[in-house]
């Protein structure tokens, strides 16, 4: 199902609310950046088609007001302030705040596999496949047994590193049941390219079955 699916690791094909919010952010920024790039290009091209220009300190003072204070300072500050605020707002929404319905799982990175355990199914371990319930917020507690790794399922959320001695918590969410590709996203040596995993999101019944030990 995953082989040949060119969207499986795609940031711009989100499959959960966290990834969706980030994808929207990307499209907004792309539109803004394109507009700015076109503006700069037009200004640059026009500069080659000018005739003789007024000179002298007054003309220069006027130019400074337009180009440096207008474009350089005011324009930049306004655009960047808006973007910074937007970015911090989105970031706040993605944080793993405690809640009654949050499911906690654990991902342990090692060279070169992933080992998953489940707070709701103590003693249960899976290798290479992380089982989660769909349509619920899932906190992944990420650790490592050796070097730095990174847990990343692009369609379900951003990535978070596995740092020795630390436990990092990532919130992911899948909108619909299915399999979602995941990769280790911090270079860790020889087996890095193939260091992958799958996130398997179950519907309610499937999740219960998994917790009871009926699914492999």
């Amino acid at each position, binding site marked *: 199902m995953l082989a040949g699916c060119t969207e499986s690791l795609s940031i711009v094909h989100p499959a959960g609310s966290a990834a969706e919010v980030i994808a929207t952010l990307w499209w907004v920024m792309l539109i803004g950046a394109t507009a700015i790039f076109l503006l700069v290009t037009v200004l640059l091209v026009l500069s080659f088609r000018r005739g003789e220009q007024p000179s002298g300190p007054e003309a220069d003072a006027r130019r400074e007001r337009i*180009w440096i204070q207008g474009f350089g300072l005011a324009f930049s500050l306004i655009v960047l302030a808006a973007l910074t605020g937007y970015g911090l707002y989105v970031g706040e929404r993605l944080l793993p705040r405690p809640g009654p319905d949050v499911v906690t799982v654990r991902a342990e990175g090692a060279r070169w596999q992933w080992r998953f355990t489940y707070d709701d199914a103590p003693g249960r371990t899976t290798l290479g496949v992380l089982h989660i319930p769909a349509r619920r917020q899932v906190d992944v507690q990420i650790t490592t047994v050796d070097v730095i790794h990174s847990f990343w399922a692009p369609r379900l959320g951003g990535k978070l590193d596995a740092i020795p*001695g630390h436990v990092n918590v990532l919130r992911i969410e899948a909108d619909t049941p299915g399999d979602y590709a995941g990769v280790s996203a911090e270079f860790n040596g020889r087996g890095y390219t193939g260091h992958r995993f799958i996130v398997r999101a179950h519907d309610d019944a499937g999740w219960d079955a998994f917790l009871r030990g009926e699914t492999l």
Partner: protein
Amino acid sequence: MNALRRHRELERIWSSRPGWRGKLTTVNNNDIGLMFVFVATAYFVIGGILAMLIRSQLASPHSAFMGPDVYNQVFTMHGTIMMFLFAIPLFEGLTMHVLPRMLGTRDMAFPRLSAFGLWCYVFGGSILIFALLAGVAPDSGWFMYPPLASTLGSPGVNADFWLIGITFVEISAISAAVEIVTTVLLYRAPGMSLEKLPIFAWYMLVVAVMILTAFPPLILGSILLELERAFGMPFFQVAQGGDSLLWQHLFWIFAHPEVYIIFLPGAAVISTVLPVMARTTLLGYRWVVVATVALGILSFGLWVHHMFTTGLPHMGLAFFSAASTLVAVPTGIQIFAWIGTLWKGRPEMHLPMLWIVAFFATFVLGGLTGVMVAIVPFNWQTHDTYFIVAHFHYVLVGGFVFPMLAGLYYWLPHFTGRKRYFKTGETAFWLVVLGFHGTFLLLHWAGLLGMRRRIDTVEAGSGWELINLLASIGGFAMAIGFALVILDVAVNVAVSTRSRRNPWRAGTLEWAALSPSPSYNMASLPEIRSRYPLYDDPELPARIARGEGYLGEPRDGLRENLAVDISSGRPRCLVIFPTNSVLPIIMAAVTGGLFVGMLIKAYWLVPVSLVGMAVIATWWAWTLGSGEDQDPRPVGNGLVLPLASELKRPPGWWGSLFLLLADVVFMGSLLFGYAFLWTVAPNWPPPAYLKPGLLGPVLVLGGAALSIGGIRLAQRALRHDEKPWPGLLLNFAGLVSLGGAAATVLARTVHDAHAFDATLWVIAGYVIFHVIVAVLMTMFLTLRAVVGYLSSRRIGEANIVGLWSDYAAVVALLGLGAAWLPGAFT
């Protein structure tokens, strides 16, 4: 004396010896600058070949011909070579060559130091290339994160090559930076106040200060990681109180400013070349100065944006995200100042202007994606993907390589005295620029589709096969283009016709000198009245050659130069420069012995090299100064100036001050690391904190009092033409006592027990190192006093020693105080 005789006499005084012996003993800025550029270009070619290997590997799912072990070395070395062995040395070489003439002075501030830096770069870089050829190149990525790069992940010698080789090369960057700061501040044509500095000089001043403050954290980190690998000192190992995040902080505190250290010289070239191409002057000069200073300092507050995915709390990330977006403002000010300059003038599409247009098209795009990845949630998706790879190639190639090529073609007539004949340069331009965008534009999209960086194959069905194939084709086109640039320059240098001086009709001083530049740079030093001396006075070149400026009459075969007041540019003193010397290359070789000893684990080489370095340094310093008070001398135009050796703060004092700035940042980074581990690292507190006891604090307090008091006593004695023995003896005793205090810390801790002990060992070792340096300097000063090189006028050396002696006392108090602090309170 007519112009020709003056030229011959000055050339005789200032030139290097002929042949290859001349290259090994030269201290001349033009020779050394050119050698830096040649070696940097050679490293660029090697780095480019590695890039072609990468692109061949990734062109398709079936094109992988390197296994991961080899591939990992290839991409690590590609990044390492480009970031450390190409970019900074290239602009250092350009600066060393052209800056003295632009400032209207005769040479860089410390010619032998220039040569020493060159040879450290050549030898250090060779160590890394040796590793590449021997198949043991570093393979953990150019940023070498532990535990992957430590003994756990990299048990072999590969990582040691990086840590040791790069640290050796960094000596070159630090020495060049000390020189550039001192040159811009002290060595200019009389009358060149800060306001009249060429904009290029402002940029390089900021860049040089950035180098002095950005490199020490990396040097510290490299030393810590090497100590961990060689001796088991657990700075980054969690089990014993270390933390791998410490490396990331130290590395990125260096590496973020590093990319601005690389961009700002590109911007310097744009600010210099673009107005000339537009037949006008730079719009908003003071705003550009403001923007450059702001960019330089702000860039030190961005580093955590490389660590957004490491699990730090959102507030911390928010600080750095905000700073990372704000930094686009001074960048934008410069961009719009440049466009405004084009609107002000009449731009002409010569080849340098073509490269500048390519800069705009490329760097602006890279800057826009940079602002995108400054936004935390977006960074959480794109970090470690090809989106980032595409972004940084856009800003580095667009913001550094393209402007440097603009500068190359701009100054080529000035370096060679020849006019470009063949138009291969234009063909090369299109190949490079179209090839570059062909390579990297679509790679942004591959990153968004999920392609991680550093993967060794493009797998079938991944979705980014076509993009990579196109990128590889683009890459080859770009490589051919770069090869054509090198060919173009070589052919034009060899066969073109001689051209008139100043074909671009620029206004800055370098165009007043002969082309190609003579060894002495300027036949006489002109009085400066504005920012564009050649626009004020088109006759200036002839008047300089006729000796109408200062120092127009060479005398006694001496290499003479003028130092000026920092703010106003008023001439302050006459400086006699050293001539050709074999000491720099020997010093670089002996320094290399230290590094090689660490690398091959022949640790006896380390103290042997240190002794050798001390001996050579003594000899080096001994050649300066004089045995008697000298009268002030006439320097032309009726002005009479004292010799530099009779100033309270000679140029060497300023050089020491700036070197100490780097040293202070090193110490600050060490204390930061200590505080970081105490706050954040797991497995603290250690089994036992070190108790201060009585002996240590007594030794450090007494030692500080004796050394600080003693050196002042000696300086006071000298000021009254008395013998400084009592003061020097007290200083010596005080320094030894400080060393003893540090030794008590070593005696009571075990270096590899816990990160706390290991940190204390580094602090104590740092104190002892500075005590030894200060002791050697005090002994040197004593010898100089005995032989009669010091007097109430010739007191500069005593003031320099005072700087280092005081510094040793301060670091002992601070460092050992910090070491004893936890133990004193628990």
